């Protein structure tokens, strides 16, 4: 059902992305000289305005007003039409809420966190630009705009990862994110082009309507016939794998933690990395046509979930643990998408945004208090210094590990239950998911115990400066904590409460209902299993880090190869580094360094020698003499005349 939007509605929807964009413009233009450390007075109202409008848009959608409008056509020429339009349906409405609400909180948090940074205005400018791009990505009604948003959020992410560009590791991490994402985006771009070539349109609705027509068609690649839809879906999924840091392109995300913590929370936990999930859900009509693609999504998701969780077990950097946890949780979301439970995936995306942002911001609060210390081995016992942070951390951890009636419980459970229903493959993936949940519980509590319990292991000076963060930091934390507790209450399984799964019903017009049947007994079993592993993981962690703190070291020594394997993240980074990253970086360095020599010097000294010498030669025609110029003019006229005589006979 679509309603003809009024002008007011159009203005409203246009304003949602426009407000952060204006904030970006104002900050980038005036920030350096005029606004400086007042940048948040521009950015926060803008993003809060977007939030208010997003709420209003959500209410519209809830009242059944799904809107698909071309706000304007950028280029219209014959069949080729590039338009800028919004599709505001249930899916984008939820995404809008998530993006704008989390952004608002993180913007406020950043006021405290980035206080005194020389690039304060720049930070808010980039962050606003990011929000703008993300909103465009979410609101787009065609693939081209989606692609624009996709690349733009990537660009902002690279800027922000490398925000402290004088820090070499930060600059490197930015480069790494850029290069790794090239692989995914290349596939994504190819997918979009293939869609245009085969379906003749980039508009979502037209593509989805026409997609049925190409089902069963094949495309010949290197002499082998492939199912066309499958190829398209897998290419699109390539993009999602890159952006959402799934196996095997997950390597950039942990490094991206070099960026400021609000960036990690906003971009690398709550919003941008979930763009892949959103995109797959958005293009679900295509994915539904290809069982192969769906299974690929599910398997990649399941493997990533367990794989990243194992790495997180032994990491010592607080942000890296959370980063691997993010990768793992994103795996859950893909797992849900892959089994056709799109709304479960989006539900988890939504709850995850809150508790993961909370974890990141909480860790930011810790890092801030410790003077940029990120190694958990140098923390401990912070409970008494930072009670507020400790409390919200506990809430987030309870939520992520799936303790009943918190947000994470409902969404994770929904996923596991949907997965469980999908035959043998489903059972296997469910097992992976449940195992990952056990690991999640373990490493999450490990993080708490290493950070907040025991004795402080840092330097005296750090201890001397230990303090609870100011309200500007803790208040957003509490807001997020509310989300981490309550966000899941919109998706209570029908088995526990009738009509409890309101989010699933809400999203059904866009994403459909998940297929699959299962008895109540099975469902209770799945729930019980996940509660069991959550508690089990907690208890193990408690035993290893509180009761007998010597166990981890003993275990590490005993199973040294495994520990080493996990600690070094399966050496995947090293592998990529040798095979892909180093060569690419070298190439990039050469290109960037060579820019001077090749392009600048080149034009003067003649590396594009042909054109240049040509140019120098042609310059000599220009003698500077009036008579010669007149002669050339006369000869030109004569040539035309002679040409006429010759050709017209």
């Amino acid at each position, binding site marked *: 059902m679509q309603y003809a939007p009024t002008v007011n509605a159009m203005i409203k929807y246009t304003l949602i992305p426009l407000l952060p964009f204006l904030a970006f413009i104002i900050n980038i233009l005036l920030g350096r000289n005029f606004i400086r450390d007042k940048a948040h007075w521009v950015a926060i109202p803008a993003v809060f305005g977007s939030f208010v409008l997003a709420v209003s848009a959500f209410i519209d959608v809830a009242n059944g007003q799904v809107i698909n409008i071309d706000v304007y056509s950028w280029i219209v020429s014959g069949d080729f039409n590039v338009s800028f339009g919004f599709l505001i349906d249930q899916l984008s409405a939820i995404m809008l809420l998530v993006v704008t609400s989390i952004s608002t909180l993180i913007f406020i948090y950043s006021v405290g966190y980035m206080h005194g940074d020389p690039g304060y205005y720049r930070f808010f400018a980039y962050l606003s630009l990011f929000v703008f791009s993300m909103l465009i990505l979410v609101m787009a009604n065609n693939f081209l705009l989606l692609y624009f948003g996709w690349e733009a959020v990537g660009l902002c992410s690279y800027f922000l990862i490398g925000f402290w560009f004088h820090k070499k590791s930060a600059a490197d991490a930015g480069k790494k994110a850029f290069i790794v994402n090239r692989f995914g985006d290349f596939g994504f771009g190819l997918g979009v082009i293939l869609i245009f070539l085969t379906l003749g349109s980039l508009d979502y609705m037209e593509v989805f309507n026409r997609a049925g027509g190409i089902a069963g068609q094949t495309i010949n690649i290197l002499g082998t016939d492939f199912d066309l839809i499958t190829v398209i879906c897998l290419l699109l999924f390539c993009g999602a794998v890159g952006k959402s840091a799934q196996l095997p392109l997950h390597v950039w995300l942990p490094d991206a933690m070099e960026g400021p913590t609000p960036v990690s929370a906003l971009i690398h936990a709550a919003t941008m990395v979930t763009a892949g999930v959103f995109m797959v859900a958005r293009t679900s009509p295509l994915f539904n046509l290809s069982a192969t693609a769906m299974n690929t999504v599910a398997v990649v998701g399941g493997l990533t979930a367990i794989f990243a969780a194992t790495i997180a077990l032994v990491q010592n950097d607080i942000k890296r643990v959370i980063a691997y946890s993010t990768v793992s949780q994103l795996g859950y979301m893909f797992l849900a998408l892959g089994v056709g439970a799109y709304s479960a995936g989006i539900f988890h995306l939504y709850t995850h945004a809150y508790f993961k942002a909370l974890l990141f911001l909480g860790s930011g609060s810790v890092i801030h208090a410790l003077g940029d210390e990120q190694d958990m081995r140098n923390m401990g016992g912070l409970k008494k210094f930072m009670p507020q942070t400790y409390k919200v951390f506990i809430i987030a951890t309870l939520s992520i590990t799936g303790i009943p009636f918190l947000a994470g419980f409902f969404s994770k459970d929904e996923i596991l239950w949907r997965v469980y229903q999908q035959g043998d493959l489903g059972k296997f993936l469910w097992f992976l998911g449940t195992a990952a949940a056990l690991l999640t519980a373990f490493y999450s509590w490990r993080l708490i115990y290493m950070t907040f319990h025991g004795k402080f292991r840092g330097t005296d000076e750090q201890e001397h400066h230990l303090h609870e963060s100011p309200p500007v930091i803790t208040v957003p934390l509490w807001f997020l904590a509310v989300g981490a507790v309550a966000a899941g209450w919109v998706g209570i399984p029908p088995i526990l409460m009738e009509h409890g799964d309101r989010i699933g019903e809400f999203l059904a017009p866009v994403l459909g209902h998940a297929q699959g049947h299962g008895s109540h007994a099975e469902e209770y079993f799945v729930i019980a299993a996940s509660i069991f592993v959550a508690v089990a993981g907690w208890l193990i962690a408690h035993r290893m880090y509180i009761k007998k703190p010597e166990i981890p070291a003993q275990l590490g020594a005993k199973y040294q190869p495994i520990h080493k394997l996990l600690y070094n993240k399966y050496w995947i980074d090293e592998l990529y580094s040798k095979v892909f990253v180093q060569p690419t970086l070298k190439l990039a360095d050469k290109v960037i360094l060579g820019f001077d020599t090749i392009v600048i010097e080149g034009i003067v000294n003649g590396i594009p020698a042909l054109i240049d010498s040509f140019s120098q030669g042609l*310059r000599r025609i*220009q*003698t*500077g*003499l*009036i*008579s010669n110029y007149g002669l050339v003019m006369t000869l030109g006229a004569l040539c035309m005349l002679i040409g006429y005589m010759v050709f017209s006979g």
Partner: protein
Amino acid sequence: MVPLSWYIMLSAVMFSIGVFGFLARRNLIIMFISLELMLNSVNVSLVAFSHYLQSMNGQILVFFVITVAAAEAAIGLAILIAYYKNNPTIKVDEINLLKG
């Protein structure tokens, strides 16, 4: 009556002489005069056509050409004087500071 083609040929020859003078001579004043010759050759042909076609348009244009030529002469001379004050030369092959 002199036939039209004679006038046209006269005009063409004058125009060619003007173009040649402009291209071949090295003295700015002579070039200037050559330009005037070109304009006047046009006037000849315009008047001839106008008479031949019994249409006044050609002669009206001649009026305008004459007056514009006067304005052009004034401006051209002014520019020439301004140039000469800074660089006392009227040899056209010495005027090539701007080139390339």
